[in-house]
């Protein structure tokens, strides 16, 4: 069968969502941000809520998320995305509101905002991309950098005696009463991508039902910061990040998930 015979509108099974803009993503080749952007927009498209959704970009690599997501968006000061989102959601309780934050933003400078937003049970979604490093500023140690992991400010590896321990913030906030849904996913393999999309869909559905805060953490790669090829970085992530940040649901429908 000729290729051109296959490439016909009636045979289309996958195309880029219209809820993304035409702009080329500013992320490094192989960066998970692109997949997470796309999934978020696919969910918004499938739910038909483009006109009812307001997004909050944060500071970090994803600061320009509003250039790529074809929805109304604002950009928050470093760490304050959930406070900005709270302001929006309180004024527009019927809109869907989400933040898009990295680990430096959400788990270091914005720790207080993250915890209190979840604790109040603000009816919004936090999309948390954890790659264990400060990507945009050039690969410095993040609150989530693993013990022994090298970064430009821990060039000999993170010494926990000296630099403290990495923080597992999703696990922390999952225990707060306002948090309704907390999960940790990845987007490095097709199956994981599909699970992440399901989690994002569930989070938006929760918001529709006024259930409180949903946090979807995505453990992702930073091949530039980790100084690896994209494929290597995904393998490294499986071997090193996942043991410390295990994938799976932490809290579903307001109930903690029993660890096996």
């Amino acid at each position, binding site marked *: *069968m000729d*290729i051109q*015979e*296959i*490439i*016909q509108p009636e*045979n*289309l*099974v*996958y*195309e*880029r*969502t219209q809820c*993304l803009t035409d702009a*080329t*993503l500013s*992320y*490094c*080749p*192989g*960066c*998970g*941000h*692109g*997949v997470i952007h*796309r999934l978020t927009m696919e969910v918004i498209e499938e739910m038909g809520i483009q006109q009812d959704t307001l997004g909050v970009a944060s500071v970090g690599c994803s600061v320009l998320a509003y250039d790529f997501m074809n929805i109304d968006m604002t950009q928050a000061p470093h760490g304050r995305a959930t406070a900005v989102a709270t302001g929006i959601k309180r004024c527009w309780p019927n809109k869907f509101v989400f933040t898009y934050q990295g680990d430096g933003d959400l788990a270091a400078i914005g720790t207080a905002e993250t915890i209190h937003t979840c604790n109040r049970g603000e009816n919004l979604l936090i999309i948390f991309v954890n790659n264990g490093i400060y990507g945009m500023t050039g690969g410095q140690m993040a609150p989530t950098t693993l013990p022994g992991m090298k970064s430009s400010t821990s060039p000999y590896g993170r010494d926990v005696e000296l630099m403290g321990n990495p923080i597992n913030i999703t696990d922390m906030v999952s225990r707060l009463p306002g948090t309704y849904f907390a999960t940790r996913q990845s*987007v*490095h*393999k*097709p199956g994981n*991508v*599909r699970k992440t999309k399901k989690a994002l869909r569930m989070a938006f559905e929760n918001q529709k039902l006024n259930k409180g805060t949903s946090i979807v953490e995505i453990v992702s790669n930073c091949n530039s910061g980790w100084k690896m*090829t*994209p*494929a290597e970085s*995904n393998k490294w992530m499986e071997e090193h990040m996942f043991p410390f940040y295990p994938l799976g649901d932490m809290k579903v429908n307001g109930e903690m998930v029993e660890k096996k």
Partner: protein
Amino acid sequence: MGKMKGAVVVDVERCKGCELCIVTCPQQVLANKEAQVNSKGYHYVYMERPEDCTGCTNCAVVCPDGVLTIYRVKEEV
């Protein structure tokens, strides 16, 4: 029983040549153009062995840049 036949259309200018689709493809259909680059200088991906594509969409699902569009048809035997 028909066999699934697929085709991958690459948005060449958007591709950054990260190769994640290449390692993900279960049929080893895709490869980067060794000799050619797009206007940004990336060796973009193409269907090296189009005859093996089943249109499973896995490559497009992992593509960070939304470069790939997938078509699929059941080939009647």
